[in-house]
């Protein structure tokens, strides 16, 4: 089992490595898939218990959290895949197959969205009060405030069941088109009769660049729509113009952690063992640090502006997330989501250590989920009460349901990962990545 670091004599220091005969994913991936399914099944059973014990609200909210995580991994994977085509560099080569596999989970992500749309009334006022008449009745029966009623009526062109479905059809159709072409071309590139030549490298590079450049741009718009429809609109009166960008960076945070986690885990086995060098792992660690900093920068800027503005339409959103027991959650979120990854990623040794990076990337995925919990739950009127476990066990659905959904997603992802060779050969960086590490 090679680890990609030539410290076994002078010859190994100077000779480039060669790729193993088989570039397919190792057999152990099938075992990982089985484990993911077992975890998903156990978590699903626990979630069903919560559901039948009267915790339908929390099950749905947990489901939303889980779905947002899978969407982040799928959509974020697509965005990062396009970004590495646009920016170039060796780091992209290591993540390309895991990212492609993430993008191909799109059908599952679409299917998983259906329950949210079907049971949208449990989550969204725009679904519970879909017409002017129902809003009027809600106002009369004091189920809605004046501000909510005004917002619902005003935003109906965007926030209504039909409109949201239409938006999602458009979003997923466009994402599907990009996913299709990027994955199709990736296979065709490997089968190019002129592969290994400068002409082939250039032709494919330009083709991918041209599609990805516009793709990243479009994806920013698509993500903004999803982030507004499904998370911001949980509080129909609240708005923040940096929301889309905040989610974009949040996706980068989690998808990079997941992709690096995949690559390092796969690097215990061939063929990834041959191509994952400490140099590129270190670069990926720096990239992750960039996303961690960007994430807190945007989150803090949003907080400071709203806090200083002190406008009654905006501030309650933060007050609901800071007051009472939520202060503890808010502090934990800050520590989990930012302090821990930031402090650890400053270490050069940690970024070069596989075991430590595995642990940290796993932690970051959890931290993103925790952050989503802080974003989702306080939107509901019973949020303050829900922080107590006594007589309120169904809040644990926030753990079991996302674990179940992510387990199913993981199994699907690993299946798609196994369907292609893990190493891209027809790329100029493949040769560079096989060079001895001291050469750089």
């Amino acid at each position, binding site marked *: 089992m090679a680890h990609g670091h030539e410290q076994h004599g002078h010859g190994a220091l100077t000779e480039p490595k060669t790729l193993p005969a088989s570039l397919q994913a190792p057999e152990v991936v099938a075992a990982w898939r089985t484990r993911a399914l077992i975890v998903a099944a156990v978590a699903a059973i626990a979630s069903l218990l919560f559901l039948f014990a009267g915790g339908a609200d929390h099950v749905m909210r947990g489901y939303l959290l889980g779905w947002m995580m899978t969407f982040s991994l799928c959509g974020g994977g697509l965005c990062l895949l396009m970004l590495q085509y646009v920016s170039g560099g060796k780091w992209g080569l290591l993540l390309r197959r895991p990212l492609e596999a993430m993008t191909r989970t799109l059908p599952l992500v679409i299917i998983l969205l259906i329950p949210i749309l079907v049971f949208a009334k449990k989550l969204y006022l725009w679904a519970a009060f879909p017409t002017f008449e129902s809003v009027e009745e809600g106002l009369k029966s004091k189920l809605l405030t004046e501000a909510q009623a*005004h*917002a619902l009526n*005003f*935003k109906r062109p*965007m926030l209504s069941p039909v409109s949201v479905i239409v938006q999602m059809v458009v979003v997923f159709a466009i994402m599907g088109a990009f996913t299709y072409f990027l994955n199709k071309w990736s296979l065709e590139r490997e089968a190019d009769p002129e592969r290994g030549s*400068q002409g082939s490298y*250039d032709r494919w*590079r*330009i083709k991918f660049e041209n599609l990805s*450049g516009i793709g990243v*741009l479009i994806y*920013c*718009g698509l993500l*903004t729509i999803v982030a*507004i429809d499904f998370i911001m609109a949980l509080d129909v*009166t609240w*708005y*923040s*113009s*940096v*929301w*889309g*960008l905040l989610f974009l960076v949040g996706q980068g945070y989690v998808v990079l952690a997941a992709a690096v986690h995949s690559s390092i885990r796969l690097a215990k086995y061939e063929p990834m063992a041959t191509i994952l060098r400490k140099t590129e792992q270190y670069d990926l660690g720096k990239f992750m640090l960039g996303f961690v900093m960007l994430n807190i*920068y*945007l989150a803090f*800027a*949003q907080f*400071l*502006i*709203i806090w*200083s*503005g*002190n*406008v009654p*339409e905006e501030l309650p959103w933060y007050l609901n997330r800071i007051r009472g027991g939520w202060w503890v959650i808010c502090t934990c979120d800050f520590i989990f989501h930012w302090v821990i990854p930031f402090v650890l990623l400053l270490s050069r040794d940690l970024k070069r250590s596989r075991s430590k990076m595995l642990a940290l990337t796993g932690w970051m995925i959890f931290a993103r989920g925790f952050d989503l919990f802080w974003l989702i739950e306080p939107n509901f009127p019973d949020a303050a009460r829900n922080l107590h476990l006594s007589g309120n066990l169904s809040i644990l659905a926030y753990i079991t349901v996302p674990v179940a959904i992510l387990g199913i997603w993981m199994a699907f992802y690993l299946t798609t990962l196994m369907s292609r060779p893990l190493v891209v050969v027809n790329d100029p960086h493949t040769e560079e990545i096989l060079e001895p590490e001291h050469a750089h």
Partner: protein
Amino acid sequence: MATKGQISDPMIDPKTGEFAVIAPGHNFKSVTEKIAGVVLTSNTPLGWFFGLIVASGVATFLVIAVTWLFLKGVGIWGVTIPGAWGFAIINFVWWIGIGHAGTLISAILLLFKQTWRNSINRFAEAMTIFAVCCAGLFPVLHVGRPWLGYWLFPYPNTMNIWPQFRSPLCWDVFAVSTYATISVVFWYIGMVPDFGTLRDKAQSPLAKFVYGLLSLGWRGSTRHWMRYETASLLLAGLSTPLVLSVHTVISFDFAVAALPGWHTTIFPPYFVAGAIYSGFAMVLTLAIPIRKFYHMEDLVTLRHLDNMAKVMLGTGLIVAYGYGMEVFMAWYSASHWEFFMMWNRMFGPMGWGYWILIATNIAIPLTTLWSRKLRVNVTYLFILSLIVNTGMWFERFVIVVTSLYRDFLPSSWGTYKATKWDYMLYVGTLGMFSFLFLLFVRLAPMIPMNEIKMMLPQTKIKGLDAETTIEETA
């Protein structure tokens, strides 16, 4: 990527198909002669004198406008209620934004190991410093009694009065002064080895003395180089957060106020992106004529212009996203005030400003910069850089003026009209900036010789190459 017909072009790197970062054929000696020659020559080009005279003439406007301002006070400007902020703040933000490209090039691109920065970082840093000088003038003049400008700083005083620490205007003082200090130190430290070269090459005793002083006893020893590299990396590390923080703090000047058009959470990233966008436009505005005038096309190549244009495309798209979100949120907020502000911005009496902004900042650059042909078309890029600089000025005009002049109460609505003193002050700072920049290109090495030499093939010591290097250096 080069097209097939360009493959034989010596400026194309056959390995990558990209334009070369520096033209082939240079060695240590030729780089020194080319760059140091501009500074040490006794035959100053007439064009330089012409440029200096024009810049001085334009800068005279600044002197006149400031003198009259001291005599009469800020009442000579167009600021009034409700438009209490006008040209002074617009110009302050515009100049500070321009400075950002220098810091990005010198710090962030250094940390990212982008070697193409080497040819342009020195004059981009100079641009940063002169831009910050111009920017700093405006708030100091705007306080009304500039001779009491030091009150902006928190210092123990007999009146026991402190600045309002919760105000972003106070944060500005710290952000901008830190930015200026770090930028000057970074710029100067970077020039020390080159000052050593100038000292050694200078013929006149005065030049030897001055550059000798400036070079701080630089001998080029291994220890000196080690310390130099460490200092550069540390300063790059210090400067990197400043790229984000300075314009973020400036965006807070607006965003923390509860005023539609200002109070929006997208401002911090969108201000930073806009700053880099305008900064790169200004680097192009300066680099294109300079490389032509001093025949530096082999050191500031099409690769640099292409890459800068790509950065502009990227940052311009972020700015466009920001504009889009402002419009969208004006509707999504369901707030009458937000909606009216955007309607007024687009179709009100000053709507023309918004559409000039959209045309110059978005429509023209972001549709054309996708084309590689245009990105390496020097004339087009120069014109485009002027267009973007104009657009970014209008962006600040739109933010400052159109958010203010029609406030919550229609009875207090007014308008904003800049006076001739406002225009003279602004144009005067353009003159001052050009004047300082021309002095810089004549008196200091505008391209870092030491960093260019690091990129030469001779620095890769391999057999004969090493011998060639030693020979040529000697």
